[in-house]
């Protein structure tokens, strides 16, 4: 495990070497994500009185950043990169509910820590928030998610969709979101049609802030979804089936989160079957030849970061698959 982890971590060097210069690059979709999640949290804490106090939010964010910092030191990364940890912390503020402050700290640490520890083929396996939530809930049963906390006002759904859409489009990963939402909506509508339920029922289920948050901010995580468009669409559909299974066969709440948690280990498999170019936060729309040449160290590290197959060929093949977006 240890050797794999160390070797695999070479990949983040690609996006994070040039840290300071690009820290405020407006092309980084994570800045939009942080803004959107902060706005949602503010709205939730004020208008919707979420069960999260300012102190708890500070604790979650602090723990996530501290873990990121510690891991940066342990793995000797060249610079401290707070954005991704901040996103995990904000997502946990929106989702994790517990009376126990130590569990909040644990969830944040596990979420961020999982990025460094649970890696396969140079990518982390789980969306950090999903992993932190699932681990704490399964291990202690003293934490929970309140999927009903958002209510279903249409304007709110609209707001989340807009903000989320922005993030996804910037991250060029709308395909996985659309595949999931389309698949899940299709399953809900089909089930209701089969049961003879009025249309109001599936629509009410779809008008859920929790569902939109999941679709636009969690499953869309480009670092943990398959590298190719085909892979991502397949993955989105699988998670949709999983979510419906949890919801309507097991009769457990928060189906999407559990489905994503259970199916994330499939991502390496999908990447093996459908190999493609690895995502880089710094280049959401793909890496152009000019940028490639202008970023020192990118190519050599990319070569090191690919453990299987002839690396040069790999990069070139990735280039050929560049998306339209």
């Amino acid at each position, binding site marked *: 495990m240890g050797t794999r982890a160390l070797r695999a971590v070479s990949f983040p060097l690609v996006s994070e070497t040039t840290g300071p210069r690009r820290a405020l690059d407006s092309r980084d979709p994570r800045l939009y994500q942080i803004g959107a999640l902060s706005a949602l949290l503010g709205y939730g804490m004020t208008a*919707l*009185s979420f*069960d999260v106090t300012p102190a708890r939010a500070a604790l979650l964010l602090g723990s996530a950043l501290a873990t990121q910092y510690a891991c940066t030191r342990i793995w000797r990364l060249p610079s401290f990169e707070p954005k991704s940890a901040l996103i995990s912390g904000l997502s946990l503020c929106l989702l994790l*509910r*517990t*009376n126990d402050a130590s569990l909040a700290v644990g969830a944040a640490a596990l979420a961020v820590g999982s990025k460094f520890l649970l890696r396969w083929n140079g990518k982390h396996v789980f969306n950090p928030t999903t992993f932190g939530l699932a681990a704490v809930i399964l291990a202690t*049963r*003293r*934490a*929970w998610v*309140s*999927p*009903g*906390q*958002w*209510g*279903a*006002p249409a304007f709110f759904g609209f707001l989340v969709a807009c903000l989320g859409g922005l993030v996804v489009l910037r991250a060029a990963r709308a395909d996985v979101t659309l595949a999931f939402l389309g698949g899940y909506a299709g399953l809900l509508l089909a089930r209701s049609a*089969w*049961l*003879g*339920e*009025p249309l*109001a*029922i599936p*629509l*009410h*289920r779809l008008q*859920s802030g929790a569902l939109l948050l999941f679709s636009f901010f969690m499953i869309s995580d480009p670092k943990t979804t398959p590298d190719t468009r085909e892979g991502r669409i397949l993955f989105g559909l699988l998670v949709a089936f999983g979510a419906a299974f949890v919801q309507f066969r*097991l*009769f*457990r*709440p*928060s189906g999407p989160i559990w489905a994503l948690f259970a199916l994330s280990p499939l991502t390496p498999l999908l990447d093996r079957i459908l190999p493609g170019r690895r995502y880089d936060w710094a280049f959401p729309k793909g890496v152009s030849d000019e940028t490639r040449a202008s970023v020192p160290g990118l190519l050599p590290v990319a070569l090191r970061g690919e453990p299987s197959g002839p690396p040069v060929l790999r990069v070139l093949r990735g280039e050929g698959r560049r998306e339209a977006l």
Partner: protein
Amino acid sequence: MAKGDARLFNRASQVVLVRDGDRTVMTLANDFRGDPKEFAVVVPVPTFLTRGQIHAGERSLVEHLDAYTAPRLVEYFDPDPCQAAAYLKDAISMQAVTVSAEAPLASPARAKSLGVTIEAQYTVGEYDILILSAKESDGLETWLRENGYRIPSGASRVLDGYVKQKMRFFVAKVNLQEKARLGFSYLRPLQVAYESPKFMLPIRLGMANADGPQELFVYALTRRGRVETTNYRTVRLPSDQEIPLYVKEQFGDFYKALFSEQVRRERMESVFLEYAWDMGWCDPCAADPLAREELKALGVFWLDDPADARRGGGSNAFVTRLHVRYNEAHFPEDLVFQETADRQNFQGRYVLRHPFTGDLSCEAGERYRNDVARRHEQEAQNLATLTGWSLGMVRSKMKLDPPPDSKKWWERIWGK
């Protein structure tokens, strides 16, 4: 004495849900006042029920649980400001109560041709119980109608979903001979125990025949903590506010108006949390906590588990009181619940503060008089905000002088 009348909410149903793991014990209380011949309930249940899984319980248990969890008024008496120290006098409970039920009688035979199977037939206490399954909803609706159940016209549309999910139908009516023999003057609550991952309450059937919004109280008893709905927002009823003393005489009206106003603000889209507390205690108590035997009778089945018995102090039952006003437009789907690990206490609690009425002829007394005036104004505003009552009406009932700032600014320039 300001005791809220028990019959505050019309058309209200009360359901006690005891839940741990996949096990559920559901108690359906009813306050049916008509001819017992006319009483019938049809409840979709997730599994087949044997005779031993059905029971006629005690109405007093549900009444006690209602009283224990009801929103409460607490009174404080200000100390002599020229001396010091405040104390609690007593808590007055406020209760909300039920109605439930609809139609009359039954028999088999034609059942088969309609695709309806009478899976079992029991007499439990004063009730005749049928467990039905059906191949299709039209057949079930016809069967129910032919057997004297006054099923609303929209019912088969709603029944359809339950039929396809292979749910059973628990149908109960009153056995008049048994009722006479047992000698109860009222109908006892029906209790059913079943094992199913579904933690939900079917409300859609009840809405099919409703001519207005319905009122429902759910009392959940769990081992771990608070219960909430997963497909609707659960919000806390506003609590812990100081309100004018006169409310003591009309606490029932206050609670009704408060609830209606909160429903309006949430656009009738939310379920309200009115109480969440460890069953072991209360502060202040609207009624004593339920005794161990009462909890067992309501279905709290884990009290004798050795693992729980060892836990000293608080009890192993956590009670959640949810209150919802719903109609089909705003609550299209059945209520789905989850148990959380939240053991924080919450209660609907409203505070009356009696000012000190003795001699105030000291320096502190003068300041106190001003504080009380300010406080009264605040109380009036709290009450108006909570209930939607007009501030002017509240003020006049409190016999308050109009506040100085109610004059227009120009009126203050030249006097009057």
